[in-house]
């Protein structure tokens, strides 16, 4: 019974969202606000159940010695983040932001160098023995020339830059094509749900 009720609610909300394709209306607004509200409630619940409780409260009770007391450091920084609500002491939140920015930057730099830059350079150092390898290497060089602004874009540099722009446009086109496919897939998914799970038009 609960499954049937859930399916009807989901179908009703799907149609309410689709109604925006005709024009903005109260059904769409209701579904939109409901989605935002439910998502926010879900996120709060998850933050408590999968973050604050197991990583802080539970762990504080379980750990002993330094492992226990060091938990106060993220707790204090977390609380400092909440000072943004109080204008007189909101500057304290910058310490917490500085900590998270520092961690993100540190992890980001090592991740980018170790995880992207070096492996991608290694992946581009290919023998010119196949059409694919030649296209790839020419594409990389031409695209780099397109973004090289230290010399005037004349002669060979201009030619390389133009070729780089062609490669970039092809990449944009491929990316957009995939995006269209993704959006159509979402429509297919919803219509499939309406036809099979809700209306049972097809077995």
């Amino acid at each position, binding site marked *: 019974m609960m499954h049937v009720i859930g399916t009807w609610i989901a179908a009703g909300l799907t149609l309410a969202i689709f109604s925006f394709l005709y024009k903005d209306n109260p059904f769409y607004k209701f579904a939109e606000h409901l989605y935002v509200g439910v998502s926010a409630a*879900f996120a709060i619940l998850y933050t408590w159940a999968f973050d604050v409780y197991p990583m802080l409260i539970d762990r504080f009770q379980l750990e002993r010695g330094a492992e226990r007391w060091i938990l106060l450091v993220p707790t204090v920084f977390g609380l400092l983040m909440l000072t943004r609500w109080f204008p007189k002491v909101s500057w304290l939140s910058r310490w917490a932001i500085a900590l998270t920015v520092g961690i993100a930057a540190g992890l980001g730099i090592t991740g980018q160098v170790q995880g992207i830059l070096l492996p991608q350079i290694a992946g581009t150092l290919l023998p010119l023995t196949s059409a694919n390898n030649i296209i790839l290497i020419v594409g990389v060089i031409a695209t780099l020339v397109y973004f090289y602004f230290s010399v005037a874009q004349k002669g060979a540099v201009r030619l390389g830059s133009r070729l780089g722009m062609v490669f970039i446009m092809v990449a944009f086109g491929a990316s957009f094509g995939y995006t269209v496919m993704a959006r159509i897939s979402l429509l297919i998914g919803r219509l499939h749900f309406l036809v099979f799970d809700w209306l049972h038009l097809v077995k």
Partner: protein
Amino acid sequence: MKFFDKIATIDRRIIYLALGIVVLVPVIFKLVLPIRVSEPVRDAYNSIDRLQDGSVVMVSIDYDAGSEPEIQPMLLSILRHCFAKHHRVIMTGQWALGLPFGEIAMATVTAERNRAARTPADSVLYGRDYVDLGYRPGQRALMVGLGREFRDFFAADYRNTPVDDLPLMRGVHNYSNIDLLVGLEAGNSGDEWIQFAGARYGVKIIIGATGVIAPDMFHYMQARQIKGLIGGLQGAAEYETLVSHPGTGIAGMVAQSWAHLLLLGFIVLGNVGYFVMRRRAQS
């Protein structure tokens, strides 16, 4: 000339209606197309297929309701494939709102397996054959930290059972105990798995991504930073073909093709209308 004026100013609602019809008709009449499996999807399939029986596969649910139609069929097929090969599955997720989709898929596939099981060894049991660790925040820090010890982040599973009480988890401490990581991605978590689990700890990774994300994953495939790539609903349909279990991926391919043809038609019509009107304005 009136015709060109009209197509240049066509009401968007007519386009939506036409799109709805070309998608709905093949869905209702269950039309299917033969699916040709691409190399990145076959590589992803082979990465799971060639693992020794009983290997540990970690699946990360990094999507939510907005990407469910594209990625859920991939997850179902991958789980079916893993359990058919008697692999053990550890599920986790970087998107808190995606976890219920992981639970739904796991419940669907384990129920199928257990209905078909003839002996207790054929059945799949929670804790022995699969575990759901749930969600923890931290993303990059979490991915780096899992390389040291899972228990630093996951002392208990999704159901709050201590991980040491789960037979599957007793031998799993860090990435060295994970044979393959499957990232199902609707955002940037895939890049981060590759950077922090793949590059730093040498974890073998395959990625299943939405159509929006998939093009950004091909350079990882080319550089062999990932072992396979399943892109969009097309990729899901290809994987369903490989595991011989048709689902919404294969069911959606005719609709997908018809919709693409329609959009191509509208692009051509729109351009013809534009150039005719421009020529008329010039003359």
